[in-house]
């Protein structure tokens, strides 16, 4: 029983981390129509920069440096790369980000080697936050929740209460009008791409210490981010939030669901498939959900624009 609370909080913390990661992707897609394949690569760069900072300065410096650096890299990518490719259409932009993903992977291999690096949780944040009987909830997971919520509030305040947020929101729905009013639309694009990358970088700096920081992490987390964005609905930040929490909780609770497929679908009797437990399928359930949703409701849960 006490484990249920730990599991719920864990699902929420993982979901919020996923949201931090996918919010940048959704923002960029809403504004620029570009599905950025290199987004998970920004996550990985954020983790490695956080690791380097934690070695040379300390962990907290990494939390500031990682989003700033990765945001800067994102803005450079947009200015020197994406902007030039933009005139050739969406497919060209997609291919560009696809190639960029590989570049980031190889650059990481060259700079930091192929093994996992020891990006450790600082002593101040290790240990249990609270215990219920035998079950402990780690401080660091609580920290992830805190940072994610803080970032969420910051982004919301930026979009709703600042002038630049007003311009960004206008550019989301009426880009030509914004341009006519004299605002520099390409500059807005660069800023939003940079913000998206910075969010991914922050997620990396935070998540890289909790999970292993290694050169394959972009590959590992990339697909699930897309699943979150597609299930939430492309272009919807609220949808991404709901979808991320949903997937975080599904992945967490499915692991403890020890009942067989044969119990859910009694007619299933083929080659021993009925004895596969839901917990074995836990990591691939989000993909089932995505396929199901695309068949039944292609625009996602709260989607506003088609792919």
């Amino acid at each position, binding site marked *: 029983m006490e484990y249920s609370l730990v599991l719920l909080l864990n699902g929420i913390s993982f979901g919020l981390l996923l949201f931090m990661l996918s919010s940048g992707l959704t923002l960029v897609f809403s504004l620029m129509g570009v599905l950025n394949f290199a987004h998970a690569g920004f996550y990985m760069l954020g983790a490695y920069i956080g690791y380097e900072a934690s070695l040379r300065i300390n962990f907290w410096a990494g939390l500031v440096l990682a989003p700033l650096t990765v945001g800067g890299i994102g803005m450079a990518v947009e200015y020197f790369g994406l902007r030039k490719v933009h005139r050739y259409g969406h497919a060209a932009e997609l291919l560009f980000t696809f190639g960029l993903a590989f570049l980031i992977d190889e650059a990481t291999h060259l700079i930091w080697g192929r093994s996992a690096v020891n990006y450790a949780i600082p002593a101040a944040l290790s*240990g249990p936050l609270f215990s219920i009987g035998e079950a402990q909830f780690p401080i660091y997971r609580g920290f992830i929740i805190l940072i994610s919520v803080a970032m969420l509030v910051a982004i919301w305040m930026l979009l709703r209460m600042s002038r630049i947020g007003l311009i960004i929101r206008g550019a989301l729905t009426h880009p030509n009008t914004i341009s006519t009013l004299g605002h520099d639309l390409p500059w807005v694009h660069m800023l939003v791409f940079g913000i998206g990358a910075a969010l991914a970088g922050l997620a990396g700096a935070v998540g890289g210490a909790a999970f*292993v920081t290694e050169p394959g992490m972009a590959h590992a987390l990339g697909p699930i981010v897309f699943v979150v964005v597609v299930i939430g609905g492309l272009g919807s930040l609220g949808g991404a939030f709901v979808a991320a929490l949903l997937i975080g909780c599904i992945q967490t609770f499915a692991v*403890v669901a020890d009942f067989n497929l044969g119990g859910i679908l009694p007619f299933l009797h083929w080659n021993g498939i009925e004895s596969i437990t839901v917990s074995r399928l836990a990591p691939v359930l989000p993909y089932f959900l995505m396929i199901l949703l695309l068949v039944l409701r292609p625009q996602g849960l709260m989607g506003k624009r088609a792919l």
Partner: protein
Amino acid sequence: MRSLLKLAFIVFAAFAAVLPASAQNIRIAVLEGLSGPFANVGEHWMSEFRFAVDQVNANGGVLNGRKLEIVPLDNKGSAQESLIQLRNATNQGIQFIFQGTSSAIAAALIDAVEKNNTRNPAAQVVFLNYSAIDMPLTNEGCSYWHFRFDANIDMKVRALIGELAADKSIKKVYLINQDYSLGQTVSKSAAAFLKAERPDIEIVGNDFHPIGQVKDFVPYIAKIQASGAQVVITSSWGNDMLNLIKAGNALGLKLSWYTFYAGAFGAPTALGDASAGRVKVVSEYHNNIASNGVAAWDAAYRAKTGSDFLFQRARLSILMLASAINKAKSTEAKEVARALEGMKFDGGLGMVEMRAGDHQLLQPLFVYTLEKTAARGGPKEAAIELEGSGLGSVTTKRFDAQQTALPHSCVMKRPS
């Protein structure tokens, strides 16, 4: 046109000049993943094989002065690419193929080597397997041309259970493994050996997770904690092992881990002091074994490369191959294989035997525990540190070569 011909001639001459020097060398092709996610493991294996070959060459080589040479081939971790590289090796006239990091690839290679050796009697190869531990390779899928230098799954599981069984306070065991042939076999094998040696132990959980897919192992750890298990047996490796351990530490898991692969490649570092005394590994080697004939080799390797010497089985495979070549007085695959099977050899930690019936090497096995090094207040046997982690290995149980032997079902078809 003229200058092109000149260029072609110069290039050809350069090749010809290089060729005679290496024609004398006996080449060994090592198929490993040198690119991709596990390239660090592949590179480490290459480094150990090269060191072993250097030692053999420094001691006079084989067959009166001929040198051994390692030819690294990148199989990119795929069976398809491995078959291409096998063809590449046989085209170059290489007669000795080494591979080990994947039983699926090993099985494909055994099949391909059998076919090659039947169809091309002039270009036969011997396949030395240094790490693929799936059971069929020395049972129903055995081959005269295949030799396994790593204890197979049942042997390793039996060693772990043998160590576990002595502790009467253990009543609940949890099994968690990767969802593929290794993990499935370990799970079945562990259940069988537990039933045989300690029928009073209850298996309170048996989980499989996909390889490399799970980032967040906290739900699995919570499940383990809820089950009340005192011991977790796992054969997970790579980042799965690291993530599992990190999640265990995050939730303050206080039980014993019985593992296959927690002794290297980042695992001891991820374990840290919180795990001292509670993590056990089954292996044919660790660097704090008492009365150890491999210590000088270990120290020399460490001095030369700066990393831990991990794989006694890499050392043994090269030394025993050299010995077989000398015994057969030939590099012909059939003769070397005949010399290698049944060979008894002093491995430096005890006598080892390449069992003729199934070509499975019988060697001493150790179950060791990770403890704080002696310099940091741990037991004095933990003298040498593992990869800068502050932890060192201490033998908790040793099995001699013949004690590790298990029956096999191989019906070996020998060439005449």
